[in-house]
Each structure stands twice: as C-alpha cells, then as structure tokens.
C-alpha cells in the first residue's frame, strides 16, 4: 500500500494550510498515512514528500526519529506496557512476563494471528495509576495479570472495537478551522508589523 486516498489528500491540504511553512505538517500527515494503512508505507512517504514539497528521504528522516511510526504492519492492537519507575515499583515487570506468557510472544513481536503487538513502553503520564498500559494509546489503569487476561479476551472477542479503533487511528476528532473564522497562516517573511492589538489601547 499506498498513496493517500483523495479524502486524505483533502485533509492533508487542510493541515498544511495551517502552518506558515508546509514542512511543519509532516508529522500530522504521517499520522494520517498510518491511520489509513495501519503503518507508514513507503509509497505514502513518497506521496507525502510531494504534498509537502520535500524529498522522500527527508520524510523518512523525520519519521524514523519517532517511535510511534511503524514502517511495517503491526497487530490490530498495539499493547504498550509501561515499565518506567512508578510502574516498575508497582509490578510492571510481572505484568509484562504475564503478557508474554499469555500471548506466547516476546515483547517487540506480534501474535501469529496479527491481533496484538506487544511492546515495552516508557512513562505514560499516568504514574499514580500504576501499573498501567495503553492499547492503541487508550489507557488501562492499575492492571493486574487477571485484568490483562480479561483485556486480551475482550480484544480477541471484538468487544472493545467501539472504544479502541484499529492501530493507526489516534484522535477520532479532528480540528476544523472554519474558513470564515480562521486568521490563516502567513509565511514569517511576509509579516513585519506588530499585531493590530498592540496599539496601547484595550481591545474591547
């Protein structure tokens, strides 16, 4: 797979239009590609390069820095178990061992049926709820091995598909700036005056 679909091209142009320089839209559009295909395909990166006006190597250069971008298909669900200090103090290691045993795979790999990819993760900003994990970046708190079993059963049974979309879909709500309300992005070299409201008077 695949270049961006027409619908996604339209979204990509909308995103590009919000930045004074098009390259700033790279990461959001890479997410869009990952949402479309479940991972960032090579053709998608070539297409993004055309849309943003950089080389495919620059796109890959940026994308490869960030852990969330996957360049090969992963499971439908990415299971990230936090192993940083607070979670480690509260039993993250046991949880990870349990996950590996239950799924029959090592962290960093995918179950043969393509359902779950298991990964070690770092602090998820939920340390008071340790040990915690994310499934496609949706949280589960204070997890016990038994909770993990239930979670895996539910994922396999398709019970959570409403709450947890397939890998690649991040936020299910997009920002939309209505044309008549937006100020618009201007390249910095085209602005050399102070903003209108800095005239020493109140704005209202």
């Amino acid at each position, binding site marked *: 797979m695949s270049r961006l679909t027409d619908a996604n091209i339209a979204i990509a142009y909308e995103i590009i239009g919000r930045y004074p320089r098009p390259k*700033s839209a790279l990461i*959001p559009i890479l997410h869009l590609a990952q949402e479309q295909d479940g991972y960032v395909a090579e053709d998608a990166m070539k297409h993004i390069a055309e849309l943003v006006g*950089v080389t495919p190597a620059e796109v890959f250069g940026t994308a490869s820095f*960030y852990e969330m971008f996957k360049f090969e298909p992963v499971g439908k669900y990415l299971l990230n178990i936090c192993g940083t200090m607070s979670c480690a103090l509260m039993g993250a290691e046991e949880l990870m061992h349990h996950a590996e045993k239950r799924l029959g795979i090592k962290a960093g790999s995918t179950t043969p049926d393509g359902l779950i990819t298991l990964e070690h993760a770092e602090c998820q900003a*939920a340390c008071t709820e340790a040990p915690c994990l994310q499934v496609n970046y949706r949280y589960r708190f204070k997890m016990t091995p038994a909770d993990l079993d239930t979670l895996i059963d539910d994922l396999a049974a398709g019970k959570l598909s409403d709450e947890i979309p397939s890998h690649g879909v991040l936020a299910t709500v997009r920002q939309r700036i209505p044309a008549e*309300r937006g100020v618009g992005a201007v390249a910095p070299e085209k602005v050399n005056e102070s903003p209108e409201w800095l005239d020493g008077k109140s704005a209202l």
Partner: protein
Amino acid sequence: MTSTYAHAPGFVAGDRPKIVTSRFEFSDSYTIERYLATNGYAGLRAALAQPAGSVHDEVKNATVLGRGGAGFPAGTKWGLTPQEVWPRYLVVNGDESEPGTYKDRLLMERDPHQLIEGCLIACYAAGLSRCFLYIRGEMALAQERVATALNEAYAAGYVGKNILGSKFSVDIVLHWGAGAYVVGEETALIESLEGNRGMPRLKPPFFPAANGLYGQPTIVNNVETLANLPWLLCNGSEAYTAIGTKTSPGTRMVAVSGHVKRPGVFEIINGVTTFRDLLYGEEFCGGIRNDNQLKAFVPGGGSAPWFTPDQLDLPFEASQVGPAGSMLGSGAIMVMDHTTDIPAAALTLTRFYAHESCGKCTPCREGGTWLERILTRVVEGTGTDADLDQLIEVGSSICPGDFPHASNADLGLSAVPFPYKMTTICFVGPSAYAPVHSALTLFRSEFEARVTTRKRIPVTAVANSTTGHAS
C-alpha cells in the same frame, strides 16, 4: 475532605485553593457548556478590556513560575523577545513525558477550554500572532478533547478572527507528536514542529524567545503555566500572590506515585507544602503503603537527584530544595519504601534516559548506554566492584565535577547543591546519571552486596608464578 473522581483518574481533591483544577469535580468539565457556566472565558474578557501591556504587567506582578521544569517566571520570559521583530509565536508544551509527571494530561483532558483561554491571554499580552498547541503523540484522549474544545471555541467566536468582536485575532493550531521524550525540551519541540527530527538546538547563543520557530521570536510555555492565566485575570495578581510564598506564589500540581497509600495528583499551595505533608498528610497520600518505612523518594521527576527521609520537611520551594541537592522539576514525586530494590529502581530510570537520547552529543549517546549496560550487569548479579567505579567514571564524563546529592545524617554526608556541570546540550545525558549517582551515593552497600569483589592478584604472586606457587 478528600475525594477522588472516577472521571479524573488519579486526581485527589481537597480543601485547598483551586486555581487550575476547580472544574475537576464535574464529570462534564471538558465541555464548553460547563466551562461557560463556571466563569469560563471571563479571564479573556477581563484581559481584552485592558491594553495588552497591562495584562503583561499583571502576569509579571503575579510571578507565575513556569511549571514545565525550569521554574522561570512567565511574565519575564515574555519580555525577552527582541523589540520590533514580527511575527512572534506561542508554542504550548503539552509533551508531558518526564518519568513520574502526571498533570498536563489531566489539564488537557479535563479542562481544555481553560488551557485555550490561557493561550489566548498569553498571545494577547505578549503580541504573539499564532499559537501551536503541541500535545504528546501517545495522548489520544487529550488530543480529542482539545480538538473538540477548539472546534467549539472557534464556532463560538473565542478563537480566530476578531475574538469577541475585538481587534484581537489569533489562530490556535492543534499539533501532536509521535513519541520521543526529548521533544519536550523546548528547542527540540520547535525542531519537531518544523517537521524535523526532534533534536535540541545548542543554546546559547539563541534562546527561543529571540530565535525560535522559523527563526522568529517564540515563547514556549508549559500547559499548567498557561492554565493559571484565566484565574489570574479574573482575580488579579494580588489574590494570586496571596496564596503560597513571595518567591513561589500560587499553587502547583504535583503527582505522587509509587509506594504510598493513596497515590494521586494534588493541587498544592506552592512554597509552603512540605514533602512530609504530601507523603504522610491525611488529605494527601496518607502515609507509606502497609505502614512501611520510607527509604527514598525522587522529588521532581526522573531527572532529579533523590531525597531520603532526612529531607521530608523541605517545602516546595526551589530556593530550599536546590541547596539541599535536588530540584522540584515537573512536580513529580516517586516514593520507594524499605522493600525497594534500589539498584533495580535506579535502572528503570537510567534505561529510560539512555533509550531517549537523541544521539547528538557523544557523552549522552555513549555514556547513557554504558551506564545502562553496566547497571544492568550489577542488577543481574554479574557485575564486579570495578563496575561501581566505572559507573562514576562514565557519569563524570557527562557531568564533570561534583554531582548534586542530598545530605544524609547516618552516612555523615553533607549536601552538594543543585545544579551540576554538564558536557551535553540538554539534560537527558545528566538525567541518565542522576539516578545512578543518587542510588550509589545514598545506598552504596546495596550495590556492594550485589557485585563480586575481584580478587586482585598480588604482585608477589606474579613474581612467584614461575615457581608454580602462586600465593
């Protein structure tokens, strides 16, 4: 009275002033309806009714300390932009990923309009003509809540062209990352926002306020810092400074995690609340789990040197915590009770920073990896006593000179004050060393018990070896 809210996991409310968490009690706190029903956007109206300069003065008078880690006053930072260079930008740092830190995500998920209002006030006061709100990639719900709130705020005329019918116009653009801790560093955040690999820039010479996004003056502020502004504009700087101390006014959000009875995120009074209050106070964590003994705690996020029970009575005040050998950082306390395996606990942090190195500076890229590898051996029981010296040696190549640590009465140690010298561009390198150094200084015997002492072959033995009688 304390209560936890199922809809705001981790947050513990109490009978304390609430500047940024006042709406958390409502399960619909993130909606524009709730926001408007609870004085929402009144701070913006109050700001727009004054000239921008006096709003800036109000923020300066309140001494709103940056909540992202460095504690630099926001009003002062806004004044560091060069005269007559336009446009200027606001970049909001919502990349929260410092180990132990949990507050910005709550603020974005639970009260996104408060953050939006804070951004608008900052843009108005400092003449910033475009705002980019950078949310950590892994925070899907925060992105959804902020996107929804922005869509609502645009539709209602609070964001965009001619806000509330005034001459003030600014766009707020939601941007999100893709997983890289170092991007939280402000110059790396700007690189990332420009579509590049998120590697920090060398500073000085250029700080973002002078030369930031697209080479333009750029203010980078933390989510919590900005969330303070609506309350400040509604209530004034006098009311703000009446809470807390002169040098640390207002409140701040602190997450306490690890081995306490009731881990949680608390909005505490700045400057006066002590670590003992937080760890043992009934309205906070209520003591160590199972009434165990406290062994050590990390006072300000994974990067901070560790404290022991000797430091419990220090207040949340930078001018006291610094000389005591650590920092307040991002308001994150991680607590270890007496059952904690100290070398293993240190390893979880060192591994984090070693993995998150961007690779730009050799001492961090190589040193962090070395520290992780050596410490792993020690924890797994295959290290030697020479490894312990080696940890210090590698650490000293990242941070030459004395590294800060706490005093300890039992060990007869006096404190070495924060900060340290460093050979790296940003604090990721030193942060890989901080846990190792603290653990090794304060709990050396636990490391020694773990390693084999190499038998040094005496010189005489070598001399006698030809006789076959090594002794």
